[in-house]
């Protein structure tokens, strides 16, 4: 449900990073979305597709990378992707585990055209 808001934040953050550069120079934006972030990637895709052109990112391709859910066992150090129903260590069955990743909502990179002077903006 909140993918619309995450898409808006994404575009806001990208434009902030661009500074003086025109948004139409953006060719590619790399996003990293954790599988446990609560985001439905397809819904985010839909909203980015709607909002980005309205905000001037008319040439941008969004590359969405899905980051796995990972935990580390504090007893046997196993790094594991939990099952869908149990977040305990599959190696030693310990519940003493630490969340490592899977909540990411990140902009990893923005690729911008070099020939800015030739670009009609």
């Amino acid at each position, binding site marked *: 449900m909140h993918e619309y808001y*995450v898409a808006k934040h994404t575009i806001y953050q990208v434009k902030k990073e661009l500074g003086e550069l025109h948004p139409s120079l953006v060719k590619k934006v790399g996003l990293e979305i954790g599988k446990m972030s609560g985001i439905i990637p397809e819904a985010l895709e839909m909203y980015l597709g709607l909002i980005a052109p309205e905000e001037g990112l008319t040439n941008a391709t969004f590359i969405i990378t899905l980051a796995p859910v990972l935990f580390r066992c504090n007893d046997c150090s196993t790094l594991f992707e939990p099952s869908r129903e149990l977040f305990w260590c599959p190696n030693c069955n310990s519940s003493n585990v630490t*969340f490592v990743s899977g909540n990411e909502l990140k902009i990893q*990179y923005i690729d911008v055209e070099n020939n800015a002077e030739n670009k009609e903006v």
Partner: protein
Amino acid sequence: MTRIHFFEHLEGHGAPQDLTRINLGKNILEANEEVAHQVYHLYTDRGVFLTNVMGSPGSGKTTLIKALAQHLKIAVLEGDIASSVDSIEFAKMNVPVVQVNTDIYGSACHLEAPWIADKLRLLIEYKPEFVFIENVGNLVCPSDFNLGEHERLVVYSIPEGFDKPIKYPPMFTKATAVVLTKVDLAPVMDLDVEKFEESVRKINPHVQIFTFSAKDEKSIQPIVTYLEGKRQALLNNRSN
């Protein structure tokens, strides 16, 4: 034309020669995080313990906060898509309260720090010891937005069924405390409260779990004691 592609693994390629890559690794919600940090530091400096109360609509968030108001010096920020139904309840109890309706933000299903920061700065002037943010009733979206809170308290009621933690893991894995409410209904519904606790522990093994029933006045006491302890720890850390 805007296009979108999905990848299961991080791309290993750099930018082509005609492109310049700006490497960021930044949180998409950075604008929210910046305001949340300001709120967190303000509340920490003033020794006011801030709790973000989240849960499904009808899970008993308001009832729980009303019970806490009988024992703690609190103020409340009410988040709802529309109406002032809950804030009127707190006003009747002489609890300082502000209402935030997200219908002015496109009927958002969650609260964001920039939408409520001014109200939280206002509430602190009433000199509460605890401020509770009652988030919009929703078991998914609010969990992604840090509001500057010290505590993430998830309210989870017996009638919702014991499978909710595995169905909604982001909410439960980020919780620092879970309050199981309406436990008086468990026998009526032939449900086992222990099974609920177990289902939370499978997802978040170390989270603090409480049981609460509005019918049992004493059941609020362990939650009061827990929150008082948490605030005392905040005050102790602040003076160190």
